[in-house]
């Protein structure tokens, strides 16, 4: 009893819509929206990248990572630590963060991928919590719960890292690049292998697919881009502390954005990340920053989504592999 959802996009048309969105986003600062809205857009783009990366490992490959913050946090702290302990520009974190995060993915994948299904999911949670507590306790290293300040970066020629317009375009470029790369990966032979692993590991192996290797590939790619998002994030906020980078809140936010958009898609995040970021911000405005209204709403949302629209919002638009 399946309703056939009409293919709203054919390839050329899909590209056009995407170009349209890209153009609009490029013009946003010119529309005079003000720095506040710009800040929220920047945040949505950060979460967008992390969400797309999450979808690759959890949606495409079926390995549900409940703590994408393990990568996000490593990326975020890289910038701060690079500045604090090495005295270098925190924007170097943008290089180190992703590399560190994907290396961590590689290493932690060895034990984690011995587990499957819900066991894997909860193990990722345990890993996330361990990292959180390490950051909280090793104050000499991470600044503990007080956190670390990320210092202002110097201006290099016209590259002014501290100008919000520059930051916006920078993250926009990162978002486009990430989308392109992740999308191409998902559509390639890798994508098929990931999906095979998700659907049936035994069958995948009978097709000659080295299941463990490809899980690691997906995990490392996911780690790379999530780390990238985190590295930008701490540079943007000029601050990092454990619950921001490693906490349950950002972790579940990414997961819910992933499911809401369409877990087994890359582009679904383009709908859910901005939408949820604005909703959460709106809730904070109405009920105050201290309230738990945003997470409460997220909780209600995820229940509703799974009950009513489990395949995500993007399925309202297209049934294609996206």
């Amino acid at each position, binding site marked *: 009893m399946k309703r056939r959802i009409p293919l709203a996009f054919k390839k050329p048309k899909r590209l056009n819509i995407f170009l349209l969105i890209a153009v609009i986003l490029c013009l946003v600062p010119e529309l005079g929206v003000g720095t506040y809205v710009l800040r929220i857009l920047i945040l949505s783009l950060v979460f967008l990248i992390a969400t797309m990366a999450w979808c690759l490992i*959890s*949606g495409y490959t*079926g390995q*549900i990572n*409940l703590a994408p913050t393990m990568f996000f946090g490593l990326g975020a702290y890289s910038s701060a630590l690079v500045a604090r302990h090495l005295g270098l520009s925190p924007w170097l974190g943008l290089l180190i963060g992703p590399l560190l995060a994907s290396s961590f993915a590689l290493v932690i994948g060895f*034990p984690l991928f*011995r*587990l499957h*299904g*819900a*066991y894997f*999911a*909860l*193990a990722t*949670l*345990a*890993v996330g*919590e*361990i990292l959180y*507590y*390490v950051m*909280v*306790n090793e104050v000499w290293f991470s600044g503990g719960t007080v956190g670390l300040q990320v210092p202002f970066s110097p201006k290099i020629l016209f590259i002014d890292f501290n100008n919000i317009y520059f930051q916006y375009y920078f993250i926009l470029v990162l978002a486009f690049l990430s989308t392109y790369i992740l999308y191409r990966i998902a559509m390639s032979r890798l994508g098929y292998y990931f999906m095979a692993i*998700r659907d049936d590991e035994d069958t995948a192996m009978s097709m000659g697919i080295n299941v463990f290797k490809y899980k690691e590939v997906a995990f490392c790619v996911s780690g790379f881009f999530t780390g990238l998002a985190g590295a930008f994030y701490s540079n943007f906020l000029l601050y990092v502390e454990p619950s921001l980078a490693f906490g*349950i809140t950002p972790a*579940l936010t990414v*997961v819910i954005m992933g*499911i809401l958009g369409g*877990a*087994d898609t890359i582009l679904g995040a383009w709908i859910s990340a901005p939408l949820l970021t604005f909703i959460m911000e709106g809730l904070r405005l109405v009920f105050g920053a201290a*309230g*738990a*209204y945003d*997470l*409460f709403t*997220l*909780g*209600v*949302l*995820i*229940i509703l989504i*799974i*009950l009513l629209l*489990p*395949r995500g919002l993007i399925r309202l638009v297209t049934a294609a592999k996206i």
Partner: protein
Amino acid sequence: MSLLFETLIAGIMTGGIYGVIAVGLAMIFGVMRVINFAHGDFVMVAMYVSYFLYLWFNIDPLLIIFVPIAVVAAIAFLVEGFILRFSRLRGVFILGGKELTGLMILVGISMVLENGAQIVWSPNYRSLVLPWSSITISIWGAKISLPYVIAFIISILTTILFYIFMTRTDLGRAIRATVINREAASLMGVDTDKINLITWIIASVMAGVAGVVMSTLFYIYPTVGLAFTLKAFIITILGGMGSSIGAFFGALLLGIAESVGAVYIAVGYKEVIGYIIFLVVLLLKPSGLFGRFRV
């Protein structure tokens, strides 16, 4: 030497309470293959209900233990009877299938409960100070606080009652049959829908007992549930999913490990000890210390 002994005793006591929580979680997993991510939050709700009962009516929570239990059981009924059932009936699953769909729904419910509690009751830490809270008694030279002892006794009693129920009653046997082989049980006339509901209610009742007992011992705050859930999950893994005896011993082990770790290693890492043991056990023996699927 006596410090070690006290640490061990304290660990065993807390372990007993963890055990009650874990057994409920293991049961839900055994019957429905779903991990109740909100299990710890059931405990949390019971903790708050006890707190307020004492605050408003000045009744010792242990005397009125059935009220928090009823509240938690009602929530469990709503969750399984409506939400989870609706999801199963719809038959559409996300990602990996039924297991993960249920898990994510319960993640949502956990968030609703935790943050709902925070909205209504504020994130402030509360504590329940009863007239007998500060009494310490001496067991073989070790000084143990009375609430711990009472909590432990209640936990043991609850676990024993649970064990008797599962092994001596028809309903208990029906539940065990469902754990071993759901399809076969259903073919033999077991009403699996009813069993699902009963399982949730029993598990939540146990979580409720744990909550009431916990409220006399620990701080009460909205996010206390997550740690309980994770610990319960760790214990179930340590004991082997589906094995209640295993869960019980796993609980004691965890309690001791935490206690010893907090005193001898570092307080800040108390929670982490469990997680590390968890990962280590999972890697070495994925089916747990006691093997799988027995009661």
